[in-house]
């Protein structure tokens, strides 16, 4: 049987080489033809290896080695491949056959054995054939030992062992060879089953033992025989024996380990939550805390009258999950739920408080051990693993749309020691998932450490911090609005229930956060000289803030600080001005509807600080004065610069230099518009746009360029009917303001303001 199966193996190998024959039968002699043939192959990268394997499967016995570049070239290629990615099963068969048949010099054969590292499995038949070559007895002893050690080292990778057990007798026959005996004993030890223990074998072993003394390898094998058939081995065994065979080769093991590591590294970047358990890699034992445990059912005895339900790992589809939702048992380790997407769906419905406590204990422990207690291990593998773990946590929390409390607790501690660099993207993502922080803690836990990092880091770090805080604010607001809907939370403060208390607490925290970001952005923009990217992140934050009442039904109004407003108004890029217009538009909508709400409800349920209106109005006036009325640097424009200083700028008419035509952000639109209106004019007179209908057309033109924020701002704040001044200048839509008394808010806004 052995014979036939190894023949079939050989048949397979020759079949495979026949296929290659058709494409490159003369290749070995004709290089150019071979290249041409190779080009036809679909995968060019694999071609040289296919050729090499074909070569080794066909090479004739007695092929000279010295000066045989072809042989050595193929050998090099295969060696590189073997050490880099391991050899596929077929290649292992071919190379083992080549080495064992000793077709070239035995030095070549032992070289082949030394780099014969399988990628996945070793086909059993290859090993069986190896033994048949061993039986030919023409092999030098060093080669025999090398082969046996190779088999022992790769034993766990042999796909199946039944045929090897079938040739147990053949293998046993080598036991008489003194130098092979230790290795043969070891191999027999691994292969022996009860049926193999026969009186004649026991006699043989005892015989050898008599000759060679009580060698540990013989004793181990005899001990195993005694375990299987105590009646056959009468020898008394010492109760304590030196354990183990010491036959493995460290170089092979190291190569295998390196291969495994590399393969694990290749899989690591894939961040999707795989169904089923992620295979743990060969991490050192004491650092296993970053492994997500396997989904296993809880121990039977864990509950006195445990009702056996369905284990999560038995389910393979979402439908199955739905069908069994009520009978699913929690796994032995809650952390294992993070290992599969299906389990996460289930986690979403778990109500058990202690289950979450278990999960949090596990997760908190892993995070603490890795990032707080453990010695810093900066090796690339470790960093990659840590970053993979954090990314997994980020995607899990996004999936659940909620942060774990252990992540939160960990982050507060980690922020105190963080350098702002280690795993930055993940840490900031996790930070943005933190649920609402009570206002009494928020400064020490969050603001102080973030502020230190913020002011000492690059502008890009500043941007990512603002982005993180924006996302945090959005999540808090979303949580609040959902919570308010679900529980019918009355947002009025008259109701003195628990929830209204919590609303004031919530308002407090949100207010603190908004004020904090206000400070960060103002000072940051100053430090970074109004960096455009930072400005955009700041405006992104205030887009959320301006809409808190309408979008998230939170009665809180905080205006953006001057440190953000003016840099945006005077920015050189039109997008910033446009976004500012949108933000002002949203503020107005929010304030107006809050005002209406107040009127409807009569009693003072929504309290809006008077100063908010004042601030809004002064911004509004400033914006209209600059963009529309060409009154930059005037009394009400918000920016006052002494005449002397303005003189020194040598700008002719400084009052109009920030109107929609001359504003540096819109200047090129103005020129574009000018050219379209008067294509024949050689010199450009931008002021002519202000005349007559052109102004309106120009504004329309700007709207068509995608400045929707600006359009909303202008439509709401500027009354188109009052467009003309008596002097004929198109001086513009007034802000619907023109206050009669300075303290009175402007325009439309006057109706929203408190009287």
């Amino acid at each position: 049987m052995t014979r036939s199966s190894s023949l079939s193996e050989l048949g397979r190998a020759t079949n495979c080489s026949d296929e290659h024959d058709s494409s490159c039968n003369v290749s070995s002699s004709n290089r150019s033809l071979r290249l041409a043939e190779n080009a036809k192959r679909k995968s060019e990268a694999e071609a040289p290896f296919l050729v090499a394997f074909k070569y080794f499967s066909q090479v004739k016995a007695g092929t000279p080695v010295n000066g045989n570049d072809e042989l050595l070239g193929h050998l090099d290629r295969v060696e590189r491949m073997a050490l880099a990615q391991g050899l596929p099963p077929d290649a292992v068969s071919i190379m083992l056959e080549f080495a064992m048949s000793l077709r070239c010099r035995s030095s070549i054969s032992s070289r082949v054995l030394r780099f014969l590292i399988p990628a996945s499995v070793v086909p059993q038949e290859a090993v069986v054939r190896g033994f048949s070559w061993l039986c030919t007895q023409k092999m030098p002893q060093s080669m025999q030992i090398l082969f046996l050690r190779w088999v022992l080292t790769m034993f766990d990778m042999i796909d199946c062992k039944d045929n090897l057990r079938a040739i147990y007798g053949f293998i046993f026959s080598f036991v008489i060879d003194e130098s092979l005996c230790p290795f043969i004993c070891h191999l027999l030890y691994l292969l022996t089953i009860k049926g193999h223990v026969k009186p004649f074998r026991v006699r043989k072993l005892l015989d050898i033992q008599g000759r060679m003394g009580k060698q540990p390898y013989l004793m181990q094998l005899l001990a195993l025989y005694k375990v299987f058939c105590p009646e056959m081995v009468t020898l008394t065994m010492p109760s304590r024996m030196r354990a183990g065979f010491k036959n493995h080769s460290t170089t092979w093991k190291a190569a295998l380990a390196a291969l495994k590591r590399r393969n694990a590294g290749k899989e690591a970047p894939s961040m999707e939550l795989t169904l089923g358990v992620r295979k743990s890699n060969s991490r050192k034992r004491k650092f296993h805390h970053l492994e997500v445990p396997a989904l296993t059912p809880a121990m039977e005895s864990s509950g006195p009258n445990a009702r056996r339900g369905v284990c999560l790992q038995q389910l393979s589809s979402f439908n199955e999950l739905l069908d069994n939702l009520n009978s699913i048992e929690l796994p032995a380790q809650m952390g294992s739920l993070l290992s599969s997407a299906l389990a996460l769906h289930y986690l979403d419905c778990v109500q058990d408080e202690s289950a979450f406590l278990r999960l949090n204990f596990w997760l908190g422990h892993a995070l603490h051990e890795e990032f707080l207690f453990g010695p810093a291990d900066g090796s690339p593998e470790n960093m990659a693993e840590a970053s993979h773990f954090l990314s997994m946590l980020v995607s899990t929390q996004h999936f659940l749309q909620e942060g774990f409390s252990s992540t939160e607790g960990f982050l507060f501690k980690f922020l105190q020691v963080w350098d702002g660099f280690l795993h930055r993207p993940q840490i900031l993502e996790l930070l943005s998932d933190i649920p609402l922080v009570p206002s009494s803690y928020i400064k020490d836990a969050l603001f102080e450490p973030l502020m230190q990092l913020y002011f000492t880091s690059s502008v890009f770090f500043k941007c990512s911090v603002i982005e993180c805080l924006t996302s945090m604010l959005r999540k808090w607001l979303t949580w609040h609005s959902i919570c308010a809907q679900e529980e019918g939370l009355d947002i009025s403060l008259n109701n003195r229930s628990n929830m209204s208390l919590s609303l004031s607490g919530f308002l407090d925290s949100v207010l603190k956060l908004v004020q904090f970001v206000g400070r960060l952005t103002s000072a940051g923009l100053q430090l970074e000289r109004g960096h455009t990217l930072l400005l955009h992140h700041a405006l992104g934050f205030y887009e959320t803030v301006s809409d808190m009442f309408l979008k998230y039904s939170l009665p809180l109004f905080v205006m953006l600080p001057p440190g953000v407003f003016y840099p945006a108004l005077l920015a050189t890029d039109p997008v910033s001005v446009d976004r500012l217009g949108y933000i002002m538009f949203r503020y107005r909508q929010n304030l107006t509807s809050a005002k209406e709400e107040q009127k409807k409800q009569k009693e003072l349920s929504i309290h809006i600080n008077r100063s908010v209106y004042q601030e809004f109005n002064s911004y509004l006036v400033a914006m209209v004065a600059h963009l529309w009325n060409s009154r930059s640097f005037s009394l009400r424009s918000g920016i006052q610069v002494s005449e002397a200083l303005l003189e020194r700028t040598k700008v002719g008419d400084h009052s109009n230099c920030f109107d929609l035509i001359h504003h540096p952000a819109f200047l090129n639109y103005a020129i574009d518009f000018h050219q379209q209106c008067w294509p024949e004019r050689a010199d450009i007179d931008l002021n002519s746009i202000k005349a007559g209908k052109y102004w309106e057309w120009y504004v329309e033109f700007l709207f068509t360029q995608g400045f929707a924020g600006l359009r909303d701002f202008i439509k709401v704040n500027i009354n188109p009917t009052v467009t003309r001044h008596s002097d004929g200048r198109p001086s513009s839509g007034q802000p619907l303001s023109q206050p009669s008394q300075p303290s009175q808010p402007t325009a439309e806004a006057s109706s929203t303001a408190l009287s």
Partner: protein
Amino acid sequence: MDRRSAVNTSVTHHTTHRRSKSYGRTFDATSRFCYTPGQLTITRIPTSREAAKAHKITEKVDPEQVALLVKNEWKLSYVTPLYQFRYTLLNVYAKHLSAFLVAEKQQGTAVEVGLETGFKVTFSTVLGMVETKDDAETVFIQIHSKPVFASAGDTPRVVWSGWLTCINGDPEYLQSLPPEFVSLPLFCTSGTESLTFLVKLWFERTFDCSFGSLSLDPNDLQWLAALWTGCHSDNNIRSLKLAWTLPAQPPLDVSLTVNGQDAWDLWEKVRPGDRADDSVSIEEVKCFITGIESHFFRHFKIHLSAGVLKKVSTALGSVHLDGKIKITCSDYMITVMTLLTECAILKMPTI
């Protein structure tokens, strides 16, 4: 049920009608603004302790069991609360653990096999090793190896032992745990690393807990040095041995042996004479250690305070910075275990 505090009850009550999933906060309270006390404090290291008093522990606890605890040097770990750990099932656990050990031992790669021995595991409760009602009873585990070819006279050899304990654990913390959890935060082991690893693995899989190694702080060592010295009048400590490592190139190890009586004299000088209570403050401890260090400086001109105190040993016991402890005199065990329990609880991820 007795463990459940009033706060907790209200939590569970609330979460039943609230759909919001509490990944957010485990002890997520009525409003989301109530924190677990101390959650945001990183450390809560006490500034004063009770002076070590001789407890005749053998009066409360079976002397044979105490003898097992004082025999070895223990490697310390901390462990998060055990879920569904039941004192009534200790025999079942013993069976499971021994089966697990055998299975795991057989799993190695082919090249590392040997004739494996069987294991016999015993779990026992050290009754009486508690100080407050919140402390869970100490659990003692022993692993015996059973050689396959044991001769008649061979007694099973103890290859590993360990115990889980909680002495004077922070009541606020212990009471905040739901009743399904048993908190035995301190895990002491003695035996091969590989067996320790397997035992931890089994605990992690069975009780959904996590282990971490518990290394101590030089402060803890100073506390123990002072507390042990304070016992000298009742129980001769013979000598106080201290070992420092100084950050020189190469690192300089300094060990100093102070005569027990001298150490006690210094300690008495440091303690204010009119102390009515038995408490020891951190200032006194610091003062005591500074006294020893300045004495050393006078002779050798080396500032020991620039180094790290690595080891403290007396006739009552010894302790090493990397989390190894040996208790020689059971009378003062409670004091030492209280300190270590506290260190272990401080490592809990929820604190």
